[in-house]
């Protein structure tokens, strides 16, 4: 499977998320900083495309590049106050979107078993590992439940126009929360009966570790930071 080649070790994934966000919010355009941002903007797009999410990758890349160019143009233009506003909004998009998209890549590529294995290998405490695993596990469930609620609202004719915004929001959110919480509860019961509460080292069979994709991702990050520092 070629897609396997684009899956990073969970620890690498978390490192990319962290470094990417730091770069996005501390680099401007001066010197190599603009280039560094472009490199980091590209990383999640390449990963997503490699994982088969071509449409998402192209959509993201188009949006984030447009925001980047717009920010650059608005800063250079003589628009005055309007230019500052445009640059501010475009800058926010071009800096937030890569982090959000990288988080999406993490969610679609990291398996819960690998995340637990990776975080436990880092000797992180259980109160970090388990909630992180639970969040990752519940995200697809939240999406499933959300679709169910949406369909049910359609069946009942509970549209925004007919019931008004506040009730609409209530009908949209409350059943979602209730069913997600219920699912989380059942999940934790099942996990507890299967030894999740035990203290002490668990041996995980999920295969984690540096693979070619990790090396490339780390090299890309090093290159990005390199051009920033050198410039």
């Amino acid at each position, binding site marked *: 499977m070629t897609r396997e080649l684009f899956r990073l070790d969970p620890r690498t994934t978390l490192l990319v998320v962290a470094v990417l966000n730091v770069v996005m919010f501390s680099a401007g355009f001066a010197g190599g900083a603009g280039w560094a941002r472009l490199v980091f903007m590209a990383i999640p797009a390449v990963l997503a495309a490699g994982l088969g999410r071509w449409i998402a990758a192209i959509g993201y890349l188009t949006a984030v590049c447009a925001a980047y160019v717009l920010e650059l143009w608005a800063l250079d233009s003589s628009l005055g106050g309007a230019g500052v506003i445009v640059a501010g909004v475009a800058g926010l998009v071009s800096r937030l979107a890569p982090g959000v998209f990288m988080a999406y890549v993490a969610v679609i590529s990291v398996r819960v078993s690998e995340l637990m294995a990776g975080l436990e290998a880092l000797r992180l405490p259980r109160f970090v590992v388990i909630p992180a695993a639970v969040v990752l596990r519940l995200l697809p469930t939240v999406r499933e439940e959300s679709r169910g609620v949406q369909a049910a609202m359609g069946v009942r004719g509970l549209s925004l126009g007919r019931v008004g915004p506040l009730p609409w929001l209530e009908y949209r959110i409350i059943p979602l929360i209730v069913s997600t919480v219920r699912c989380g509860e059942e999940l934790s019961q099942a996990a507890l*009966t299967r*030894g999740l*509460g035990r203290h002490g080292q668990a041996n995980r069979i999920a295969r984690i570790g540096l693979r070619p994709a990790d090396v490339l991702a780390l090299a890309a990050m090093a290159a990005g930071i390199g051009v920033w520092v050198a410039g």
Partner: protein
Amino acid sequence: MPDSAVRLDAVTFSYGAAAGDSLSDLELDLRPGEFVALTGPSGSGKTTLTRLINGLIPHYYEGVLSGKVLVNGVDPSSHALWRLPVGSVFQNPRAQFFTTDTTSEIAFGAENLGLEAAEILRRVDAAIESMGLEELRDRSVFALSGGEKQRVACASVAAVRPPIYVLDEPSANLDLESTQQLRAIMATWKASGATVVVAEHRLGYLRDLVDRVLIFADGRLRQELGGTDFRRLDEGQLRRLGLRCAWGRPLAVASQAPDRGYLEVSGLRCGYRRVGGSGLATPRRRDVVGIDQLRIPKGAVTALVGANGAGKTTFAAWLGGLRRDRRGTLSDGGRVWKRSERRRRVFLVSQDVNHQLFTEAVSTEIELALRLASPDSGLPAPDAAAIMNQLDISDLAGRHPLSLSAGQKQRVVVAAALASGREVVVLDEPTAGLDLGHMTAVAKALRDLADGGRTVVVATHDADLVAACADNIVRLDHGSLAN
């Protein structure tokens, strides 16, 4: 080995503030290797007993516990949960997986115990082999059917090799074939000498396995039957004990459809992605519901039957106008209902009723549906009180819908369907996991809908439900009509 696998002495438990059904004054002694079924209506306390055995009481549900519990000779309250020698399988196949791929899931329990990696892999392989799960290796758990999920859950528990297995309504969401596969797995556990405790409403598939049947009511053990005595019971006796027809009845209709005309489905082609199936790591196979012509009698209850994955849910969604497929029409006396019209005239009750209850009280739920009712149905518009009366939920009027039992929720949604004034009501598995009393109540509600002039289509595995209310049976097999 201790003389008793499970021993309860004068055990009384109540959940206190948490929701749940209490147990009073229970004496119980299960021998090692015994296969025991717990049954009785919802709320009778059988789930509570499973929790006393697997340690969720008192480790997860604190409540008020008195008396003495011994599981394999140890008191669960003085041992950490992970030390208890019990493997648990739960009702909801969607919500018992901690990881997202099957192999990791099967390994999960053994991993947590801190076994060596090589030993874990050996046990995973052994569990996969003994249960015939080779095709389910390394799959995403989200792409499995309900039956496949339950088999993976069983393998995951078996990889720990506990001497005691506890299952809480494991077959509630399964079709006949998956239930048989589950039965085969339990039979291997029994043969290996393990103690197996199963809480169930439908005992038919366990008939040859049980050594003892414990019947609960109102938190008490009401009756105890040996396996041989249990197998001798006939349908009438089972019913008097409040049990579902145990011996797997053939599908048969309750009555003949009245002649009130037909809704006609024709030329339907509806692609769907079937979850489950064997082979590929990520199933991409597209299945198609193809129905050239089908007549659905108006003012009657039509049961839509067929195995999991046969396309029942897809067909139901299409009827309700939830799908955009353009090939196929639903018509009434030659007049075609376009998709937007199907959405207005058809009320779809989907499998998970928790998604379909929106307000904070049963009565407001009905009032909301009345307020949004389609004005053009030509059916008489009843008021909320009459509807609640008809469905026997008047005494629940002030309750929060999500605090009700599964069978009560089903009836509230059916009441909303009635209030919506729509002519057609389509339900997807409304009686999964319901006991005899609740199943009968839902069947009566559907019967009433049809007798009141509505057209009812119910996708179901439940032969008891079909026998109790259907006028007409339509069987789907791999997306096509079967005879």
